[in-house]
């Protein structure tokens, strides 16, 4: 009886402790929450990958250093969440300070300048404030997605499912915070705090 009870207590402590540790103290049951907590606690430097925008112009992600940047990851034939992302950027475009830059990055290799142009027109994106770009080199794209923690899963309809968000990058080119696609208020607040 005593043996059984002490063993039960030990097991409960060890198992409960493992689950406590595995959920970051009961805060992060999903990898998405965990990713956001990690990024906020330890901002990540982003790789200086080469990009091509909807006009065919070439640039490098590190060109954006010096001012705050808000990124989103999209594909142009996306029926639902990328439209939400696009509208979120439209709102932020209107409300944010003049030095903010916006970047919609496509992860779909099928998206060429023409398709990026459609997306830009649909949402009123105009360079240099807001560019719609692709990452021509697949290896670069993979590194960038990995560093930002974006997981892209092909769906049955030829599209993709991805963990969507608004990615805030500071003037030093570090990813410092991720917001829900509809959390434009949170993103704007954080942007204003960066500008101060």
């Amino acid at each position, binding site marked *: *009886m005593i*043996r*059984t009870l002490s*063993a*039960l207590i*030990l*097991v*409960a402590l*060890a*198992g*409960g402790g*493992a*689950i406590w540790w*595995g*959920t970051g103290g009961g805060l*992060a*049951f*999903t*990898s*998405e*929450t*965990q990713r956001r907590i990690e990024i906020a606690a330890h901002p990540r430097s982003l790789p200086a990958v080469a990009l091509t925008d909807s006009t065919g112009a070439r640039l490098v992600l590190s060109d954006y250093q010096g001012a705050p940047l808000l990124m989103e990851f999209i594909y142009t034939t996306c029926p639902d969440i990328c439209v939400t992302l696009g509208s979120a950027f439209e709102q932020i475009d209107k409300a944010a300070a003049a030095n903010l830059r916006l970047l919609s990055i496509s992860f779909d290799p099928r998206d060429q300048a023409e398709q990026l142009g459609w997306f830009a027109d649909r949402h009123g994106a105009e360079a240099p404030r807001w560019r719609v770009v692709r990452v021509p080199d697949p290896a670069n794209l993979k590194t960038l997605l990995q560093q930002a923690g974006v*997981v892209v*899963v092909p*769906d*049955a309809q030829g599209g993709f*499912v991805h*963990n969507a968000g608004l990615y805030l990058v500071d003037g030093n080119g570090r990813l410092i915070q991720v917001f829900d696609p509809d959390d434009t208020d949170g993103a704007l607040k954080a942007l204003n705090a960066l500008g101060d």
Partner: protein
Amino acid sequence: MGIDRQVAIAASLIALALIPPVAAWLESGLVSHLFGQYPLLLGGGALIGSAAARRHPCGWSAAPALLAGLLALAFWLIPRWIDAALADTAANTAKVISLVLLAGLPLGWGWQQAGGVLRGFVWANVASMLAVMGWLQLSVPSRLCNSYLQSEQAVYGRLLVAAALLMVVGAGAMALLGFRMGQKPKDGQGPAPPKHRLDRQG
């Protein structure tokens, strides 16, 4: 079933779950991952555990073993760790080892030696845990696992609820038909010997 045969079946279940093409296929979907690969690994571990308990009985350890097995299983049902196992080979290895040795094995070891009261308690708790988890999967509007589709999450949630219902209905039917949880299914000669039974030991 002979002990050697039981261990051989266990080894083949675990091996089946780990053959690279089979493992890749099972892990490609949420449902096949959790309702295919998990049961194979758990079942393999449980058969080894119950074989070990038949050879070296140790009645007092049944309850702690069952608790350990359930907690280890609960850990690997956390969406974050399901994702981690898919993204990272080390995490996947940890998953396989824990599901076999820390979840399946103690569950088989404990169940083999548990008395009727303890078995009923565990059964009822697992059924309610599955029902709550299924309801959670169905009620959360967003995806819980970054690696899987929302449509699969809905199927997974429904299957969890169905499994819970099946467990409740199954236990009810067995009670109505006069079976007892503590009874070994095969010998049909009443409960396991008292020295192996936790509820008798108190």
